[in-house]
């Protein structure tokens, strides 16, 4: 925390006047950009006659990039709002918690891409005649890819507030609003920003996938970077793909510098540890904003108004003392809830039986299950490969602080980079080398997923205390012995975290990795992802439902029976 600017800041500082100028200019550019791009959302759209077309001229790329970025930020805004409400309710009410948290657990395991078909049709019906429907469907896809992580993080922070802070807030009679703004949100801020940043990175994948899709035998195109790539693939135009790739790199870097860096630097003040941290995150833009006078002036002008609003909201949420619940009523509610949940489970079970019997039939279910096993094998193979290749590299990087500092941003960037931008290059390679997509799709899935393993291996290796490493060196531990005794136990927790993320990402990616096209050539793998993709394209509702349901079942089952157990083991035995 800097109350007084640190010497480095003072040296780099622009004069306040220049900083103010930069801020005014920046704000104007931002507003103009949003206005220009936002208008595009209301374009005419009357399928199949009037559909927006993608112009492959690279000069249009900045415009398309802005369109995609705007979608990302709208989704982020909705995600934040949803997080605050859902997380708050789940943490505050014991009864809501018992429904909302398991639900969240299931929702985050559902393959988002499989749902696109359902949401697209729904949203188009909601906004007839304008692109807004497609726009909303795309934003919704991004939203569902970002939001669960953030919500879990917020809920966790609320549940683990330091006891004494809560007592102080109660004794000093903070109103609900004051508690929320002064205690709960700030305490959750660091985790929230970090998770939002990570999820935002993952979101680029869904922008690319949701802008150009074919649903129910219809091609839907939404102007943006993703649809530009799609059009370039159709035209078999490699140089254009290169331009799109470059644009994506620039956009990710810009968003990082202009949005996430300042946000991370700002949120550092909300760290709960009371001692001064060793390394405070820095951002030139944040320094600029704190140097300039305009933001402060505006802040001071608005202070009385903010105070008024604050007092009003505080008044509306005065603390009320709730008498401790009557244990008899409590038990009755408990019974009711148990009965209700059994009823729901029973109802769902009955519906599933009915659905299978009347539409797809048992044979189709077995087929989908078999395809699920194939995809599961691919995901597992990917995890093993990524672990064998990237863990040693990650550990080597993590043990070398200089290298880690240099490479970590790069790995973070790679994790955020949407792998589906690279798919066409890989597809071309598969066609030329005549590699079956049954194997190739493993590579496609790993293009996105492997970085989580690398990233977490680095973090895990860094978390191994130096004295333990010195001890190992002193005892002469080397090679496999060193891995067995120190490194594997030391990075295990981090590896599990990476594995969960990578596995979830890979399942989602299977829907776009098991069917790929280059121009008029289509490669297809046998698997559940391809099954869903084909059912979606054909508009075969029963099969879409079956495919998504089966994949959700696989993901939830593997999380429960595999990852959850490893996680527990990591917590209990290998906690450093």
């Amino acid at each position, binding site marked *: *925390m800097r*109350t007084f600017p640190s010497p480095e800041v003072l040296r780099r500082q622009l004069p306040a006047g220049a900083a103010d100028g930069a801020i005014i200019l920046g704000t104007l550019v931002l507003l103009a950009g949003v206005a220009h791009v936002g208008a595009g959302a209301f374009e005419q759209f009357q399928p199949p006659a009037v559909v927006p077309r993608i112009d492959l001229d690279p000069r249009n790329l900045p415009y398309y990039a802005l369109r995609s970025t705007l979608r990302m930020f709208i989704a982020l805004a909705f995600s934040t709002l949803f997080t605050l409400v859902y997380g708050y309710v789940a943490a505050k009410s014991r009864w809501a918690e018992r429904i909302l948290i398991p639900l969240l657990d299931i929702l985050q395991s559902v393959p988002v891409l499989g749902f696109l078909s359902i949401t697209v049709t729904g949203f188009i019906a909601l906004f007839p005649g304008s692109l807004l429907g497609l726009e909303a469907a795309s934003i919704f896809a991004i939203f569902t890819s970002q939001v669960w992580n953030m919500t879990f993080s917020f809920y966790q922070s609320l549940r683990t507030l330091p006891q004494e802070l809560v007592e102080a807030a109660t004794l000093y*009679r903070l109103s609900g609003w*004051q508690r929320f703004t002064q205690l709960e949100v700030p305490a959750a*801020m660091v985790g929230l920003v970090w998770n939002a940043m990570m999820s935002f990175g993952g979101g680029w994948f869904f922008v690319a996938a949701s802008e150009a899709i074919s649903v129910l035998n219809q091609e839907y195109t939404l102007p943006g970077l993703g649809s530009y790539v799609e059009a370039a693939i159709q035209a078999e135009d490699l140089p254009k793909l290169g331009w799109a790739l470059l644009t994506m790199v620039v956009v990710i870097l810009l968003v990082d510098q202009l949005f996430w860096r300042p946000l991370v630097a700002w949120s550092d003040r909300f760290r709960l540890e009371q001692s001064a941290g060793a390394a405070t995150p820095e951002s030139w833009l944040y320094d600029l904003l704190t140097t300039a006078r305009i933001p402060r002036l505006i802040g001071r002008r608005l202070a009385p108004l903010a105070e008024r609003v604050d007092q009003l909201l*505080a008044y509306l949420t005065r603390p009320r003392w709730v008498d401790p619940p009557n244990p008899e009523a409590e038990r009755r509610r408990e019974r009711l809830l148990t009965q209700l949940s059994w009823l729901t489970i029973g109802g769902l079970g009955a519906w599933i039986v009915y659905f299978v019997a009347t539409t797809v039939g048992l044979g189709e279910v077995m087929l989908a299950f078999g395809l699920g096993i194939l995809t599961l094998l691919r995901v597992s193979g990917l995890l093993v490969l990524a672990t064998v290749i990237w863990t040693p590299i990650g550990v080597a990087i993590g043990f070398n602080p200089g290298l880690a500092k240099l490479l970590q941003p790069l790995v973070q960037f790679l994790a955020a980079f949407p792998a589906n931008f690279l798919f066409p290059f890989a597809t071309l390679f598969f066609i030329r080398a005549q590699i079956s997509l049954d194997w190739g799709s493993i590579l496609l899935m790993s293009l996105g997923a492997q970085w989580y393993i690398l990233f977490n291996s680095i973090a895990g290796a860094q978390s191994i205390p130096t004295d333990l490493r010195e001890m190992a060196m002193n005892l002469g531990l080397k090679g496999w012995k060193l891995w067995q005794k120190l490194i594997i136990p030391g990075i295990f927790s981090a590896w599990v975290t990476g594995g969960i993320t990578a596995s979830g990402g890979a399942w989602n990616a299977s829907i776009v990795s098991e069917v790929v096209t280059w121009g008029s050539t289509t490669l297809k793998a046998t698997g559940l992802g391809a099954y869903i993709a084909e059912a979606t394209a054909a508009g075969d509702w029963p099969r879409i439902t079956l495919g998504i349901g089966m994949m959700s079942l696989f993901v939830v089952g593997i999380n429960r029976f595999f990852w959850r157990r490893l996680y527990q083991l990591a917590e209990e035995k290998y906690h450093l």
Partner: protein
Amino acid sequence: MSSAASPVLIEVEKVYKRFPLPEGKGEFTVLSQIDLQVRAGEVLALLGRSGSGKSTLLRIMAGLIPPSEGRVLSNGRPLRGPNPDVAMVFQSFALLPWLTVQENVELGLKAQGIPREIRRQKALKAIDLVGLDGFENAYPKELSGGMKQRVGFARAFVLEPKLLFMDEPFSALDVLTAENLRGEIDELWNTQAFPSQSILIVTHNIEEAVFLADRVVILGSKPGRIRGEVKIDLPRPHERTDPRFKSLVDYIYEIMTNPEIPVTSEVAAPSPVSPRAPSPYALPLPHARVGGISGLLELIVEWPQGRVEIAELAERLQLAVDDLLPILDAAVLLGFAEVSGRVVQLTEIGQDFANTTILRSKDLFRQQLLARVPVFKSILQTLEEKNSRSMRADFFLDLWDEHFPPDEAERQFATAIDWGRYAELFEYDASEDRLYLPEPSESPPAQ
């Protein structure tokens, strides 16, 4: 300063606090039949060892948790919800790290809806009072521990509460800082400049209690109950050099180390005798590691005849009572030492234990354990009855769970494991969570 004529600010009537044990196994009593009054103008200390429920009592009086039975009267009216007359200073400060010193101090005023300008002025005054002017715009993480607690005091002072509650306010600070801050708070109280009418402080530090308080209420453990109170009849400020100061401290040490002796003072409250359950798992083990016990014995044996005053021992070790007493209790339980009055004396076995080799000391420890702590015999019997000569740890944990809340049951279990392992009575495999009888071998293990 206090007298019977001063108005009663807060009154605790027949308060019990029980927490349910898991799976409907009944309840665990934390506080039993508490009657207590705090009058205007007095400093009252609640002194007790860990597990005496002193912090729980403080929180019940602050209205942060409701009692299971009985009631708290504040200004003669039954308390419902947070007590508006109380401001509290917390052990680990409870400052919001994202607010400046001034914003932290203003927090309670803001909650009352007091306008900005008045808030600012009051806060500045309170910050000035605790000697932090110049730090209004600093963030807590820029401050040292002592300064953070000063902010904690300012935040309480600014509300001008009738009662100031302190929950071990100096125990997170290093010795010198604590001493300094304690002195300043006492001085502030003595000069009548204090912003509240009474102070209630929870502590396990005997000297601190005698130094600050007019009245020291002593709590007993398991269940927490009031054993009695000691009036500190010294002129303020209480000088440590006063011989009467030392004798009061010694007297309280004696009470604290001997749970049976009655507290004889003007207002001695009856201490209900808790019925002892027949199960060997009901007898609480003091939480002391074997290393701590043998370390203590080796220290005491250095004194002539293995006799030393407990207060002197504590001072020599620089240990708080809370840390010393469990070790002492364990030594007494095992028959290595005896406490009479304010003196601890090693027994013959204790002297032997302190002087002998490690192998022999293990034998002694095992012998005493089996002779004097019934739970170990019971565990051994269970293990011997099994063909596999082993048993799931859960089985034993459940037995403790019958008598203790889950956390405490786990601590009991951990202590038993520590002692039993040292005595080589049984082995514990953490990964399988099982207890084993050791392999029978004629000779002691090599090396």
